[in-house]
């Protein structure tokens, strides 16, 4: 059951979200391959997929990391460099709740990053239906 209080809070952030989150947290198409995290050698995309769901990342960013206009930016494919990704997750400066090392290990974080890297590019539909 939704509480009015919760809704009001949500309504307050409705308009602000695009400003809060700013651009998507993915690199541009022309920026080359993302840098590998230190832990990338042992990263496991399959485990990352499981953790991405278990830890609720999908709630705001979609099950494929595609993002949502009011909830959280697109994360993949082509996520931002791992250093910035990890840093933001540990100490977000905008609206994302923090995922500290106490609740998500560095290895788990690397696995989630590997999952986001493994996302496929969207199809090109031409002409656009819109």
């Amino acid at each position, binding site marked *: *059951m939704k509480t009015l209080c*919760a*809704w009001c809070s*949500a309504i307050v952030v409705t308009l602000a979200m695009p*400003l809060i989150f700013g651009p998507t947290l993915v690199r541009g198409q022309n920026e080359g391959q993302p840098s590998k995290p230190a832990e990338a050698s042992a990263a496991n995309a399959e485990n990352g997929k499981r953790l991405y769901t278990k830890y609720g990342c999908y*709630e705001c960013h*979609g099950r*494929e990391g595609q993002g949502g*206009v009011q909830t959280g930016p697109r994360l993949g494919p082509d996520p931002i460099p791992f250093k910035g990704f990890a840093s933001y997750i540990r100490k977000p400066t905008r609206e994302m709740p923090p995922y500290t090392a106490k609740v998500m290990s560095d290895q788990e974080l690397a696995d989630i990053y590997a999952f986001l890297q493994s996302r496929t590019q969207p199809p090109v539909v031409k002409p656009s239906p819109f």
Partner: protein
Amino acid sequence: MAKSKKPTVDRRNFLKSVAAGAATLAAPAASLPAQPAAARPPVAMPLMPPVIETDPPAETEVLTLDRSGSDFMVDILKYLGIEYVCSVAGSSFRGLHESVINYGGNRNPEFITCCHEESSVAMGHGYAKIEGKPLCIFAHGTVGLQHASMAIYNAYCDRVPVFVIVGNILDATMRDSAYGEWPHSVQDAAAMVRDYMKWDDLPVSLPHFAESAVRAYKIAMTPPMGPVLLVADSELQENPIREGANLQIPKLALASPPQGDSGAVAEAARLLVRAENPLIVVDRSARTQTGIDLLVELAETLQAPVVDQAGRMNFPTRHPLNQTNRRGAVIANADVIMGLESPDFWSALNSVHDQVHRTSHPNIKSGAKLISITAGDLNIKANYQNFFRYTGVDLDIAADAEATLPSLIEETKRQITADRKRAFQDRGAKLASAHQQALEEARADAMYAWDASPVSTGRLCTELWNQIKDEDWSLVSILRHFSWWPLRLWPFKKHYQYLGVQGGGGVGYNAPAAVGAALANRKHGRLSVSIQDDGDLLFAPAVLWTAAHHRIPLLSVMHNNRAYHEEMMHVQRMANRHNRGIDRAHIGTTFEDPNMDFAKLAQGMGVYAEGPITDPKDLAPALRRAIAVVKRGEPALLDVVTQAR
């Protein structure tokens, strides 16, 4: 007004006669041989004809009458142009109910059978946003109104005219316990909802009822619009119309909406014309198509960007000056910002930081001038605070925006010089380019997770558009849980193509409001489409039966993310904040184990339905089949299992 030729008797005397009959029944019955208990009539129903035949009461009863007060009340509803009465049947307004279906011929108004009073009011809410006028809701003054209260609150916050009539028996000596009339009666019925009701009254005579009904209608329809309530006392409904009564219905003339003071409007025009980067922020600016057209004219005159907070269909989504998809940039760049009917103007200009210590910061330039035009300031109440944070504007015009736009446009044109016009053209060209770029980005965004299962909301939005784009469509649902995809991608032009939000944030609005809007759209031959949240439908799903029973054509496409997802995100935020487990936000927020089958639910209500659809490739054919049903004049529902947002 036809006068009754039968002897008149008021309901009180009628009931006295009945009581006498009951007394005469009771005495001889005591001397009769004992009857098996099962054969005895219920205690509440002792008034059977055989006794009257064998032992008539001393006073001759009048058992029928030609016209009752409720007939006159229906005359009033007809005069007001009320097309429908949405109601769960109730004893306290049985007189009105019968007068609608028999005396009134069940036409204008037609009785719409509802299964929850919240649905009745929300149907009226949706209907009014399409039709621009209220339908009527009947409800018990106590239990019905309590069910209806959430939907009334939504209508109040959303500034929508809703006309509620509640039945009640004020005279305690006339209440019959057998019908539950004590708990169904109340001293001041409207008290419970008065905090979020624009006006209410308790008429004590039929002339009083007529005046108050016309007054209520006028008040509801005067911006800022809102819900109104009349108490129809049962005695007033059921007593015969007194012979010789000269009942009149007062003339209705809707009040012209309040317009901005000419000096203030001239100052607003001066600020806008001189601005380097003016911005227009709208929320519930347009009440009609005219309101949309006027806003287009103002924006084009100034070549000013428009950011839409989406409380109504305010501005065409594909207009080059629509900068909603890049609101952050234009708000940050503006030196004059004018809010039109924006109750939450503050949130358009500021951001809230929802961490342990909540903070906020402005998103606008220091020194930016602010103008507000809103009629909302004319109907502010203290307890339920639907006025949001205070915005310190430079020019505040307490007037209806749509009614003020003609003079503002005229004044703006008068003040524009040739130099300013050239500057405007340059500005407009840049904005058009930016609009196109933002649209391309939105198109690209919709392609991500294209083949995902659960179905992505971008894919669903695209597939739905492909099936309805050649129809005269009307999107009758809220969109904020759907990533606003349609407003970002579809070309909205007409006032009925988008209805805005529920107002008070009350869940359970969308399903009945969509049915009410579809009811209004039916006579116009429009294809009504609703993107239906699962959690919302669960509040009062029987409105699907109402749609089936009354042949209300509506395509409901479930946005079935199997959760109260917004609440899930709130719980997730708390879990992260407290650092004590981040994997249990689904507890209490999701609808899994077992999954709900909305297709079966709808089928059980007599609605054509398919699903659950989990493969996006199945969407297009399913949509085609469902639309064919809707075009035959019936509701249809597709249960699509979707991504969260």
